[in-house]
């Protein structure tokens, strides 16, 4: 995407990622609905930008509330979030688990098209409305419907289990499982530093041991254990995408913003299996486009938020970005490079496995986390951003490496 104007993100907000693991969560007790999450996140942004009057357009990303919550037409909740949004242009976008970043890209396009100076972008998903076994049916819509019948009961874990199995076979079981366990450990340790994270309350003493639990195909899938997987989450995240004029209008100093330097989008045929199950090729294309449009290389990145819906996807993302050669991602992770004290910290508030994965909100959550890191707002989870590497990268993936959006962010001061 060619950025013909300067575009910024400001005023991010995350609700709690609610679900198993949180002390407040009880599957049988009533919980907030879709609209409450939208209101909390939306108001969280509006309060930082001086209110709804400053907003030109709104975008909501949501994967599949029509099935989880029997609710469509989500754009019409913006005036519910704030009466000041009544009659403003509002759009809803969808691209499975890549929905959130599609919403961000839509906001960026509006600013580039000069139809808006301030866009309120929100992502939301409320998934604990059904048991996981039925949620699997709903999430399977991120794949091709004609594959559902022969697919696994847990459709997407099944897909990534096949990828993991292929990876084990090609590059070794033990080493890969160990790297996946380290990935899990990093995710939980980072989440413990972030009060909104679903795993914030996790006190398990032996994370590596847990991560190494042997996959049990009878109870789950062939090549993954449940800790390799992101959980079922309810949550919303929101952020404002603004122009320079928009920054001024909201009265926000440049130091509180991150600049969007590159956006890479890529799509792959949903009816086709991956050409090579051990690679995330569409991810690789999207990241390449994002880095190219930003005019930087991976060496300039201080931090990455990648789409670790499964720990194996985290390992493969490391390779897709180019930090390690094909087959060496596990070594890169095992050497500690992706941990919060490593060369390039990944998923510093826990990522999808640790922070949570309210599907349609995830892409927005990633942007909020990078905005926080680059503006020094991450609290206990703050990492150091080296002066010579002022960039962050996010990768949001819809389906099995199908709908990809990668964004490069830059610290402004």
């Amino acid at each position, binding site marked *: 995407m060619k950025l013909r104007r300067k575009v910024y993100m400001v005023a991010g907000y995350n609700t709690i990622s609610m679900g198993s693991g949180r002390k407040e969560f009880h599957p049988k007790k009533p919980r907030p609905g879709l609209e409450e999450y939208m209101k909390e996140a939306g108001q969280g942004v509006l309060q930082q930008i001086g209110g709804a009057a400053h907003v030109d357009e709104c975008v909501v990303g949501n994967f599949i509330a029509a099935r989880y919550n029997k609710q469509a037409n989500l754009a019409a909740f913006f005036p519910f979030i704030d009466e000041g949004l009544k009659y403003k242009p509002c759009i809803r976008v969808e691209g499975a688990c890549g929905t959130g970043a599609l919403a961000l890209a839509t906001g960026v396009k509006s600013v580039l098209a000069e139809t808006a100076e301030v866009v309120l972008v929100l992502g939301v998903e409320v998934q604990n409305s059904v048991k996981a*076994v039925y949620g699997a049916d709903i999430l399977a819509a991120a794949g091709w419907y004609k594959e559902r019948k022969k697919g*696994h009961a847990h459709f997407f874990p099944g897909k990534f289990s096949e990828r993991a199995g292929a990876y084990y076979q090609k590059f070794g079981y033990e080493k890969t499982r160990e790297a996946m366990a380290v990935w899990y450990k990093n995710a939980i340790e980072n989440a413990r530093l972030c009060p909104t994270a679903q795993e914030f309350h996790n006190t398990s003493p032996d994370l590596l041991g847990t991560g190494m639990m042997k996959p049990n*195909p009878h109870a789950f899938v062939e090549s993954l254990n449940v800790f390799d997987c992101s959980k079922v989450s309810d949550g919303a995240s929101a952020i404002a995408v603004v122009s320079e004029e928009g920054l001024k209008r909201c009265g926000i100093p440049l130091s509180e913003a991150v600049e969007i330097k590159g956006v890479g989008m890529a799509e792959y045929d949903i009816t086709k299996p991956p050409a090579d199950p051990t690679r995330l090729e569409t991810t690789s294309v999207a990241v390449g486009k994002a880095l190219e449009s930003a005019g930087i290389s991976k060496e300039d990145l201080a931090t990455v938020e990648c789409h670790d819906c499964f720990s194996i996807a985290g390992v493969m993302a490391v390779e897709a970005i180019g930090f390690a050669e094909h087959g060496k991602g596990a070594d890169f992770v095992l050497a500690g490079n992706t941990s919060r004290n490593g060369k390039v910290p990944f998923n510093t508030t826990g990522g999808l496995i640790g922070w949570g994965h309210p599907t349609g909100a995830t892409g927005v959550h990633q942007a909020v986390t990078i905005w926080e890191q680059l503006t020094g707002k991450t609290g206990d989870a703050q990492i150091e951003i080296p002066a010579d590497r002022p960039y962050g990268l996010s990768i949001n993936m819809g389906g099995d490496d199908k709908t990809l959006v990668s964004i490069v962010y830059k610290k402004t001061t």
Partner: protein
Amino acid sequence: MNYEEKLQQVLVLGAAGKMGSGILLLTSMEMADISLKPENKGKEYIIYALDVSQQALTGLMKYIRVQLVKAAEKKINVLRNLYADRNDLIDNAEIIDAYVNDVMNIIRPVTTIESAYEANIIFEAASENPDLKVKLFSQINQNSKTEPWFFTNTSSIPIGYLDKEAGLDGRILGVHFYNPPAVQKLVEVIKAENSKPELSEFVTRFIKNMRKVEVPSYDFAGFIGNGHFMRDALFGMELLDRLTGQYSFPEAVYMVNKVSQDFMIRPMGIFQLIDYVGIDVCQFIMKVMKPHVKNELIHSPLLDKMMDLNVKGGQYFDGSQKDGFLKYEKGRPVAIYDIDKKSYVPIADFAEKCDAALGSLPAGHAPWRAVVGNRAKDALLREYFNNMKQSDSKGAELALDYLRRSKEIGENLVKEKVAYTPEDVNTVLLTGFFHAYGPINDYIN
């Protein structure tokens, strides 16, 4: 007739009871799984659910549907394979619905015993009354069109006795599920002297298919489970007597219950367990065991007295606990029965005093929940019980006495040929009673 053919016509006797409903659930699922195999398409599979009242059967069918949904959700991986050729069923939700309907369709709720005359297999879960069981078995056996196999869920009556009295020629086996059968892994299997080997072969496969644990027991009244539990309960009541000189009845019940739960790291205290099983059931089992046990009196005057006062414990159909020695609110004990005043006294009235008298839990204590699934539990328990031996508290003293007695009971079960091995005794207590450790151990040597 092979395994699958045998399972085409089955009857559960006492199907609406706590045990019968669980056995019905498990058996009907096993039958449905067989009926769904391609080679069995078109064959009829029927399970009669026999009980005395229509009202109970209505409740049963509701219960079965709810449980089937839960079970189907758990075995969704298997079900997707079973329904692989049904192109109209795509989502997990559709497959689960289809399976629940398919299982429900093979169940026939009935109130008349004539249905049993068709069955190849009779699972019996009627009340624990030897005369009743003999009468039912004889009647079915005499009128049956087949030569049916009888699997009795008795937890205490010798199988050989039932075989002989009902004239079954060895077509009987003890298949003792634990409560609730849908959840509990343990099945005690008891061969009478005369039991035909093909019954054992069938049951071994049946239990394995249900992914449960089979433990063999000699055909001796009470078998392993109740052989241990009844004596263990009697010892609890013996400790109660020891304390009632110094403490009131509710205080003593509280203390013994606390020692047997917290100090001994068990899932529940002995009086709560008696309530859970039912004071009436415990009394009945002791009555059945008593004539068969020599040199030992399996009888509790205290249970008789509680029954006279109409305090029975046991459970409601939904699994919630009825009041017994203890009174429960939301499943938790809140008061204890005072046998003299014939009313419940709140635990809060005396807990502090009794806790002080028992003293603090030995160092290294962890609650049962934290120990039972812990991979390092052996070292943890060893250290804890070592500390208990060093402690001079009243609670530690009572717990050590109890542990010694529990071990002695276990060893005697092996010595007196109730259990085949010490491991079998431990397996029964670990899986059937959810203990964190078997009674035959060397923690307190």
